[in-house]
């Protein structure tokens, strides 16, 4: 076990226990800027931990970032760990991040689907969904990116519990989703929401459940263009960007359609790096390059959010 977060091995994949330990160490080492909030419990009773990066103030405007809502997308949780360390390292030295944190808080949920993540280590590396049993079916789990109350039940999600895109019995039926819903509503001042997946190198904004563009589509597109330009500048990784429905396919009940409809204008979802050969099994040697390039895009979105209050 590493003794501190400086000796944590960011270039390797980690178990859920190691992620939880990392979070506690980061909080202990940086009590002035990081705290841990438990926003709920997973179906199997694991804590849903969120790291709060804050330099003070009360209920400041905030940016939300989550990784690992699809448990098998291991490079996302690994990138989340790197982002957390990057925030504490760069605060006070990087003027852009320091400026953002002087006005806003950042919330980071690294293991958004902890039951699924634990199961990818113990039972099935290819597990994507939550782990709640489905009454009347032998198939377990719900796709937590089809379980949100935005076009829930419309085309773009499955009603079959055995499908990888099973939407669940009702919107927000999954505690992993409901806990975020409750947190976002009770906070009431979240200005950007970024949900991170892997792997097909995309940056997308709402909508996924309908073809109608959002009222902010032009601005969201421009922000995405800049973010991807910054991302690509590091290693030349090519990304596509646009609305979910135009860029990938119709996906109802997805996270960022719900957040946008809650009034969070800067709602984005990433699909991180794909080497074209490994899919969800991106070699650990690529974790840091993936996180580094993604960080540039995140900074671009966060910077725009902080400079364009609404």
């Amino acid at each position, binding site marked *: 076990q590493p003794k501190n977060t400086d000796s944590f*091995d960011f270039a390797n*994949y980690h178990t859920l226990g190691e992620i939880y330990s990392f979070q506690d160490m980061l909080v202990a080492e940086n009590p002035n800027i990081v705290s841990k909030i438990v926003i709920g419990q997973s179906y199997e009773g694991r804590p849903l931990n969120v790291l709060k990066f804050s330099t003070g103030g009360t209920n400041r405007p905030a940016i939300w970032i989550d990784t690992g809502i699809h448990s098998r997308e291991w490079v996302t949780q690994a990138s989340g760990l790197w982002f957390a360390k990057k925030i504490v390292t760069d605060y006070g030295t990087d003027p852009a991040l320091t400026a953002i944190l002087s006005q806003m808080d950042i919330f980071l949920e690294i293991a958004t689907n902890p039951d699924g993540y634990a199961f990818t280590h113990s039972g099935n*590396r290819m597990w994507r969904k939550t782990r709640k049993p489905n009454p009347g079916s032998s198939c377990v789990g719900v796709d937590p990116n089809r379980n949100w109350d935005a076009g829930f039940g419309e085309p773009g999600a499955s009603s079959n519990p055995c*499908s990888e895109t099973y939407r669940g019995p009702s919107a927000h039926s999954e505690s992993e989703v409901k806990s975020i819903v409750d947190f976002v509503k009770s906070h009431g001042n979240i200005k950007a929401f970024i949900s991170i997946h892997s792997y097909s190198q995309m940056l997308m904004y709402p909508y996924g459940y309908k073809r109608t563009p959002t009222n902010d589509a032009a601005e969201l597109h421009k922000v995405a263009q800049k973010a991807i330009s910054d991302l690509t500048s590091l290693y030349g990784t090519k990304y596509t960007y646009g609305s979910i429905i135009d860029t990938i396919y119709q996906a109802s009940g997805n996270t960022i359609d719900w957040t946008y409809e809650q009034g969070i204008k800067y709602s984005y979802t990433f699909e991180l790096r794909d080497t074209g050969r*490994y*899919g969800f*099994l991106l070699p650990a040697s690529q974790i840091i390059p993936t996180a580094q390039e993604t960080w540039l895009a995140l900074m671009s979105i966060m910077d725009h959010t902080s400079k364009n209050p609404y």
Partner: protein
Amino acid sequence: KVTFEGHKVLRIVPKDEVQLSLIKDLEEMMEFELDFWRGVTTVSNPVDVRVPFHVLKSVKDYLETQNIDYSAMIEDLQMILDKEQKEMAAARVP
């Protein structure tokens, strides 16, 4: 623990709307127990699908009969998973 001996991940590239539709049909054939890593989107966009060993021949036959191009993105999934486990274990050794 679930293992994936002999599972391949195929990368399928639909050339036109007809092929796109045929791959969508494949997506709905639950009996094949296919796991779409990257779903069907538009023509020329790759579709990645994990194919269990016991249906590999049937899936390949389906694709070849319809003249749909595919290649193996991952030849043996379990081999990569074993490598991943070894690397994780090695990283834990002080």
